[in-house]
């Protein structure tokens, strides 16, 4: 692929050199802040704040009630402590639950009306909010037909969606792609039918909090038999200080449809940690397929563990129909603390779930991530490939569940978890749960932990690579299985990310 060696050359050489230097010194590339006037909800969370958020989104009363019920529930439950992560107590009353750029008070009619500062922010992030453009970093893909390169973007800035591209073109194909706040207003029957059916409002501490206070997010509906004509993506940017971002994504792939969805996220560098608690629900009907890819690059905090994002996310796909399929791919490089288990409920017969993950933790980062594969239908299949890389003083945990219910006859699971440690001050942990309740299913789990192979390093070094390049190459080889599953737009990004995060960890 010609694009591979061109990926570094983007946004003009000067900027690139600056970025490269920044990367080499281990700097977080997206740590800058957009100076923009904001409207905040008062700090703290209570029923009034819940009503305020609901009001800002001009929601119908059933939605407000749903949120209030979730809030009442949240007040009764306790924060989970089972993950292998340590962080200071979060003061949930010391966070702004809603932050919106002042310029977004009046909803822009079209992307042309959006505040140029916001557009510039996304431009700088390499996420152009122009319909003719493609995601940055894939210039090499120019040879491909124009149709194949289009990516529709929903850009979420703090608590609000700034705009969604290609909406009209998608509508022609029957695909609804908009912010969730818009969907609640415009397509209440769809939202009502599906919201909270995969991740109930009572699911867990953070999902329940999210149900009460989510401010925006993306909504996708792909009608029966439709192959979504382009990739859809949401880009989450946290900008404001002392805010939490709570977004909600709902994706419905109706019978026989297909959609590929990408998600990216970044935040400015700050000394204090910020909370991000999202919920993603995916409904996959008969013969439908959803591909969900994430490159998570929230600010990880500094080398001493100050600041960074606490990423406490609940993601789940419900393969309701027979022969439905879902594929989660994630590259986790950011966040100070990650707590995230994208899961598949394989309800339909012959449904399939796949999970490919690379989690990279450096410095003081802590990641506790994995998946759940719940096999309920007959002949269901799941595959888990998880690669964890720890460097510095980071802790990386794979936590997963494979459950074969009594009725899930003739089902299959294959799990492979590998961990790589770079340096002797970090940790890699594997906590798989395996529950097999019928004998016609086969479950296989394998896991290994190793260090970067000396022979491989020596080979690379003998070919003239410096040590850092060599480590990055070996690690990339180790991660290839996961990277290959990413859509092309991200494969470039991901390979660069692997090199960045492992920067400085050798010697």
């Amino acid at each position, binding site marked *: 692929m010609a694009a591979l060696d061109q990926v570094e050359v983007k946004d003009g050489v000067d900027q690139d050199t600056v970025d490269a230097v920044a990367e080499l010194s281990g700097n977080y590339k997206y740590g800058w802040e957009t100076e923009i006037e904001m409207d905040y909800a008062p700090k703290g969370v209570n029923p009034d704040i819940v009503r305020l958020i609901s009001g800002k989104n001009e929601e119908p009363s059933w939605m407000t009630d749903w949120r209030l019920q979730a809030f009442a529930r949240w007040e009764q439950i306790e924060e989970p402590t*089972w993950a292998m992560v340590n962080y200071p107590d979060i003061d949930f009353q010391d966070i702004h639950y809603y932050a919106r750029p002042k310029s977004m008070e009046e909803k822009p009619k079209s992307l042309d009306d959006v505040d140029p500062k916001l557009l510039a922010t996304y431009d700088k992030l390499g996420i152009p909010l122009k319909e003719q453009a493609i995601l940055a970093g894939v210039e090499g893909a120019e040879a491909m037909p124009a149709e194949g390169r289009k990516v529709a973007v929903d850009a979420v800035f703090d608590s609000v969606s700034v705009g969604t591209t290609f909406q009209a073109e998608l509508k022609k194909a029957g695909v609804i792609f908009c912010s969730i706040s818009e969907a609640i207003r415009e397509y209440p029957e769809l939202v009502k039918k599906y919201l909270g059916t995969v991740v109930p409002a009572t699911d867990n501490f953070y999902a329940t909090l999210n149900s009460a206070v989510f401010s925006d997010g993306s909504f996708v509906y792909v009608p029966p038999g439709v192959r979504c004509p382009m990739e859809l993506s949401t880009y989450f940017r946290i900008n404001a200080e002392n805010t939490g971002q709570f977004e909600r994504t709902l994706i419905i792939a109706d019978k026989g449809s297909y959609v590929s969805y990408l998600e990216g996220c970044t935040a400015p560098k700050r000394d204090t940690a910020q909370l991000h608690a999202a919920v993603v629900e995916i409904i996959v009907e008969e013969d439908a397929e959803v591909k969900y890819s994430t490159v998570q690059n929230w600010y990880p905090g500094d080398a001493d563990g100050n600041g960074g994002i606490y990423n406490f996310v609940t993601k789940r796909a419900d393969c309701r129909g027979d022969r439905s399929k879902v594929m989660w791919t994630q590259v986790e490089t950011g966040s100070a603390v990650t707590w995230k288990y994208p899961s598949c409920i394989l309800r339909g017969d012959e449904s399939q779930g796949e999970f490919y993950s690379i989690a990279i933790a450096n410095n003081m980062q802590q990641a506790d991530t994995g998946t759940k594969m719940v096999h309920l239908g007959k002949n269901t299949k799941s595959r888990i490939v998880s690669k964890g890389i720890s460097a510095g003083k980071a802790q990386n945990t794979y936590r997963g569940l494979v459950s*074969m219910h*009594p009725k899930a*006859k003739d089902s299959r699971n294959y799990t492979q978890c590998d*961990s790589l*440690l*770079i*340096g*002797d*001050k*970090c*940790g*890699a*942990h*594997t*906590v*798989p*749960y*395996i*529950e*097999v*309740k*019928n*004998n*016609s*299913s*086969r*479950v*296989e*789990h*394998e*896991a*290994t*932990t*190793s*260090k970067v192979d000396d022979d491989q390093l020596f080979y690379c070094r003998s070919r003239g690579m410096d040590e850092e390049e060599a480590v990055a190459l070996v690690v990339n080889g180790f991660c290839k299985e996961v990277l290959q599953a990413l859509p092309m737009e991200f494969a470039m990004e991901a390979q660069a990310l692997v090199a960045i995060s492992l920067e400085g960890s050798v010697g």
Partner: protein
Amino acid sequence: MALPQVKQDATAARLDGITLPQGASWASHARKNALSRVNAMGLPHRRDEYWKFTDPVTLVQPDAPKAAVFQQDEAPLFEDVDRVKVVFVDGVFDAAQSSDLVAEGLEIERLADALATDIHWAKDLYGVLETRGQMPVARPLAALNTATATDGVVIRATGKAQKPVSLIYLHQNETSDAVIHNVIRVEAGAEVTLLETGPAAARFSKVLEVDVADGGKFHHVRAQGRDHERRAVTHCFARIDSGSLFKSFTLTVNGSLTRNECVIEIVGDEAIAHVAGACVGDGKDFHHDDTVFVTHDAVNCESRQVFKKVLRNGAVGVFQGKILVKEGAQKTDGYQISQSLLLDGDSQFLAKPELEIYADDVACSHGSTSGAIDETALFYLRSRGIDHTTATNLLTLAFLAEALEEIEDDVLAGALQDQLEGWLARRS
């Protein structure tokens, strides 16, 4: 953190009326400390993460549930092996049925006698290894055992033992509630084999504390009876030092509830620890749980966990295994495999094979599989004229072989193999 009310209540109910046994002052001290550990931890509850797959209620409730006495219809295991026999009937030492407690290279004593002796080497181990094993996971039933045990053996191996010590646990009373605590010290360069057989009681709590000094070798072979109704919780706490060897194998055929915890701490370089288990479970009343925790705290060490379970007719098999490699425990070679063979659609296999690693130059692998009998292999055997039952039994034995191979002594392994074959043949 305060204990949940439900645990406080269950713990209070169980401890109600318990008076600590008399003994030497160090023993009283150890028992008192153990009791306060129990109070601090609270007895286990189904909602505890560590008891997620096994309901401890019958182990915790004040009275032992009734268990019919199984009528032995075969020759006792290891009968042909020259050994020091130590017999316990429903948890009480029976001198008449036991051998003289003497053998070259060994000092063997009744626990009760040791605990009554003012100056005794067992002071440095009794409840001490158990306490070390309480971190990072609480094992309150082991602490309860330390607090209340009056019987068991203490063994010191000073050289290569002339013959194995065979602990025989007989069950005669339908409601017996036995508590046994054994302490073993293998001195530097010494070697001993411990055999344990029998169902023991209606409810059985057993703790084994083993300290293996530099270059010492400890072999442990255990067959946990074949009764249907016994409930047991056993703990083995081992600390092994430089160049030492620890090998433990357990065979379980039925028993209502069996929870075997094995906690191994490798503290010296170049030590080897293997723990293995084979289990055959038949029927809804069968619940078997192997919980293993191996800690590597030294360089160049090897650990292996090999657990195989054959389950049918609604039997439940559990494996919770963990390898913890501490910072600095470089060149660790850790291996863990747990496999189940489900002979029908009702049985369950629940596993949690964990790794926790803080050193970068190590190789740790863990595998876990579950599935039905290989139809192709079955077909092959049938096509050679072997009937279905015999073929299934052959494949079952082949499946269990990797675990049985962990027994070093061919005579002991052969005896277990014969017993297992006999059991399978009679059951089918």
